[in-house]
Structures are given as structure tokens and as C-alpha cells.
């Protein structure tokens, strides 16, 4: 496996693990911005992290070969008949 693939796999796995924030399980404090319980603020931040991860995947692992796909069969039912 290439180094880039390894690093991206580690990135996705790490982001997945970060979703399981057991350390916030019974915590309400501190209130982020004065009103968001820490568990909710953490998971909201996690959504931003997920968007950042997808940006990295788009930049580094985009399936560029699919951009040149051309139609070979208009309708498979026609092809079969």
C-alpha cells in the first residue's frame, strides 16, 4: 500500500475514533460560548472536522479517472434486446 493511502486510511480511522468521546460522557461543563454543554459543542466541532477530512480526501484521493467516463450504452434494456 502506498504511503499516501496509508496516511489517508489512518486519518479516516482517527476521525472515526474521535467520534467516540467517552471522556465527555458524563460532563456538562464547561459551557462553550456560555450556553453549549461540552458534549454538544464537541460533537458540533466534530462535524466541522468531518468536513475538513472530506476536503483532504477530495484533494488527495479524488477518483480523477472517473472524470473522463463516456456513455457506452444508452439503455441497458436496449442493449439486451
Amino acid at each position, binding site marked *: 500500500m502506498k504511503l499516501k493511502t496509508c496516511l489517508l486510511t489512518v486519518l*479516516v480511522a482517527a*476521525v*472515526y475514533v474521535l*467520534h*467516540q*468521546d*467517552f471522556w*465527555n*460522557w*458524563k*460532563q*456538562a*461543563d464547561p*459551557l462553550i460560548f*456560555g*450556553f*453549549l*454543554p461540552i*458534549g*454538544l459543542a464537541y*460533537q*458540533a466541532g*466534530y*462535524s*466541522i472536522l*468531518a*468536513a475538513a*477530512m*472530506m*476536503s483532504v*480526501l*477530495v484533494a488527495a484521493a*479524488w*477518483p*480523477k*479517472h*472517473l*472524470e473522463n*467516463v*463516456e*456513455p*457506452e*450504452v*444508452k*439503455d*441497458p*434494456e*436496449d*442493449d439486451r*434486446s
Partner: protein
Amino acid sequence: MIPVVVVSIYLVIIGVIGTLAFRKSKANTEDFFLANRAVGSMVFFLSIFATNMTAFAILGSSGQAYRQGIGIYGLMASSSGFVIPLTIFFIGTRLWAIGKRFGHQTQVAFFRDRWECSGIGTVIFALSVVMLVPYMIISIMGGGRVLTDISGGRVIYPLGCAVVALVVTANVFFGGMRGTVWVNIFQTVLFLLFGAVAVAIISHSLPGSFGDYIQKIATNPKTRYLVTRERMPERYFWSYTLIPLSSIMFPHMAIMCFAARQVTAFKRTVVLYPLAILAIWLPCVFLGVLGSQLEPGLKNPDGILLHLLTDHAPVWLAGILGAGIISAVMGSDTHQVLAVSTMFTKDVFAHYGGKTKYGERGSVHFARGFIVVVTLIAYVIALITPASIFELAVRFAFSGFAAMAPVMIAALFWKRSTKYGALASTLWVAGWLALTWYLQTISDGTAPGPGKPPLLIFPALGHLFERTIVNVTVFGFLPVMPMVLGSAVCMVVVSLLTAPPSRETIAKYFPQQRSETLGQGAKAEPAIQQYASRGR
């Protein structure tokens, strides 16, 4: 009455957009079902997001937060924000390419061609329809309920359901996929703004600050669980992360992937998707928790946002926000109706000779007729059947579609996968759905109350099957876990034991694997030669 007028204006706009789309339509199925595979980048994002967001994203999320607290965001929203873009990135882009190359318009059409099967495709079709139709029915029910609630009971429930069913039918009947995606632009913008506007208005009208209310909840031992996850089992939380795998397997989501003009449309979608989920879910979950303090003791907590808006927003704004909620209901419902029609037309009518006999124009007529019939049946069922049956069916459908993900992954990425592997996985999923339905039904009378530990369904089997307040669990995990893992095992084991498709078919679907690995400039090894050299 003002909210009803605002929502009525909104519904008329939806109808007009459908009519405009009808004027641009052509009499062939690719145009009707997929908008001629020409949906642009931003519209694609707005539309695929609307496809996946139901009334649950606004009403259900706040209702669940009212009952269970902030944990619901991590459980459902942020896990979806991680898993769904990944599945769109890895599966959606490949589905798009295969649809573009070979003209497939449904998942089943792809499976049939990929594994050279007809009957097994029909089995997968049947399971998909059984899991999708309850979702469609419950959308009509949800729309009817919202119209009744925001009108303060002036619009009776059967009339509310009828209005939603009629507008959805008209939009899909006339506009097909084009009408649906045009409407989605309007709908998604409306419900993306919903949360932020609702938070701002409610914050402005409250005597205290948000922080004061949250502190009160946190310092009261009886309500503290609402701002932590102390009542949410960790196994339950972990296994729920498998549920969003269902998204790409829902036929309306997969069909939407076929409709993009270019694969680059997926780039923006996968990055913006988690942020759009954040924009809707965070305000709704927060307001749900806050609502437990402001409006305690609601019998139906799913109505908490409507209560808060009625009490804290000007009536005209409550109408616009009500339209935002209706948008979420109808955005997904139109896609579901279109998907069911696409599947019946392509996977049954065309596949079993209808298209040869009646042609493309006849297929579009069949699709339109089917849309009217299926919505009418769904409307009647919505009126005569309790919502709880369909709510349960939809919960099971999410697990069922998630457990079908290994079938799609194998079809796209594993040359050696076979139709019998797909059949084994499908039967495994169907068997588990029947089992969990049975376990749920027999344990309904003994379900523990809020905050109480789960009960053993069969004490002799220990913790194998337990019943929580809402769900059946398997060793504390949601049934989706054994369903997904078992489906993957069935696919692998049975595929290895049975003969793969012909070399020609494998070459058709895996033509350039080597060039993909080595990069664009590398010379592709002929697929048949490549396959032969590796052996079966």
C-alpha cells in the same frame, strides 16, 4: 390563520415550479427519472441533501433531544456527517460512473447486469420496496400532522395529508426528477435557514439567557442527563454509527447519484454535507433540550419546536418556519415517490418486456400513472393505519438498508463477488428484519420505563436479546451490528463457494483497475488478460 396562508403560498410555489419543469421535459425515461443526467454541482448538493433530510431532522431531532438530551446529536447527526459523505465519496461517485457508462437508472439494474441475474435482482428489488414504502407513507403522515399543528387544528389531519400527497404527486407527475430538484433548491435553502432563525428569535424573546437555562438543567439531578450522555449506553452509541450506511442504499439516494452531470459535482457535496447537517441539527437539538425547561411535560415532544415558535415568534414568521418544516417533509417524499416509480418502471415494467412492447413514451406514461396510484394508496393507508406501525417499519428500514451496503460495496469493488453471495446477504437481512420485528412485538408489553435498565427477552439466552425502552438490542448493541457484519460474511463466504460472472462481464466492470492504481499515464492491462492471469 396567517401561518396557513404562508404555507399555502409556499405550496403553490412548489406546484408552479413543477409545471415549469414539465415544459422542459422530454418523453423518455432518462429525462423523466434522472433529469437527463444533467444536474449541476450546487443543485446536486442541495438536492441530494433534501433527498436525505426528512421531517425527523427538524421535528424528530428536537423531540428526541427533549426526551434524551444532547446525546442525540452525536448519535444521529455527527455520525451521519462522518459516514454519509464517505459513502457518497466512495460509492456514489462509482455508481454515477457506472450509470453514465452503461445507462443504468436503478441499483437493481446495475446488480442484474453486474452479476448476470434476473430473479435475484427481483428479490433485492422486492426487499428494497418493502423497506422504502413505509418511509413514503410516514412522510405523508408527518406532513399532514405538521399542517394540522401549525393551523391550530383548522386544517384537519386527513385534509393535511391530502394536501401534502397532492402537491407531491403533482410535482413528481409533471416535473419528474427535474421538477423535484428544482423544488429542492428552494426547499433546502428554506430549511437550512430554519434553525438559525428559530434560535435567534427564541433567544431574543426569552427573559433569561440560554446559559441560565442550561445551567438550571445541569444543576438539577432530575434533568442533568439532558446535558450529558449518562443515560445513553456506549454500545448503543457505537453501534448507531453503522446506521448511516443506509443512506447510500436508499433507492432515492442512489438514483440521485445517477443524475449528476459530472462526477465533479460530488466534490462540493461531500465537503458541505457535514456542515449542512450541523446547520440543521445543532439548533434543533439545542432547542429541544431548552424546550424541556420552557415547556415541560409535553405529551408529544416532537411538537416542541412548533410550541416554541407559537409562543416566541411573530405569526407570519411562524408561518415561514412552518413552511421550512413542510419543506423537509416534502423534499424527501418527492424523491421517495419518484424512486418507487423509477424502480417499478425500470426494474419490473421495462425488465419484463413492457418497454419493448410500449416503448419509451409508454414507459413514461406507465411511470406517471404509477405515481398517481402509489400516492393514492399511500394516502389511504396513512389515514387508516396507526403511525406507530410505520415508525417501527422505518426504524427497521434504516438497519435493513445499512445491512445491504456490503452488497453494493462487493458489486463495485470485488470482482469475485457473485449473485449467490448477494442473494445470501439479502436473505440474511430479510431474516433479521423478521426476527427483530418479532422480538420487538413480543417485548412491547414489558419494555422498561425511562432511566430503567434493559430487560432480558429470553432469560435462558442471557443478554443475547434485551429490550430497552425503545429498541431490541443484541448483547447491548443495536441489531444493525449483526445485520451488517453477517451480511458482509454471507457475501464473502457464499461468493467464494459459487461461480463468478463471465469474464466478459467482469472485464466490463473492471476494465482499468491497473491504470487506476498506477495513475492516469499508465498503460491499462486488458481486463480479460488481467483477470485470467490472476486466476479465479
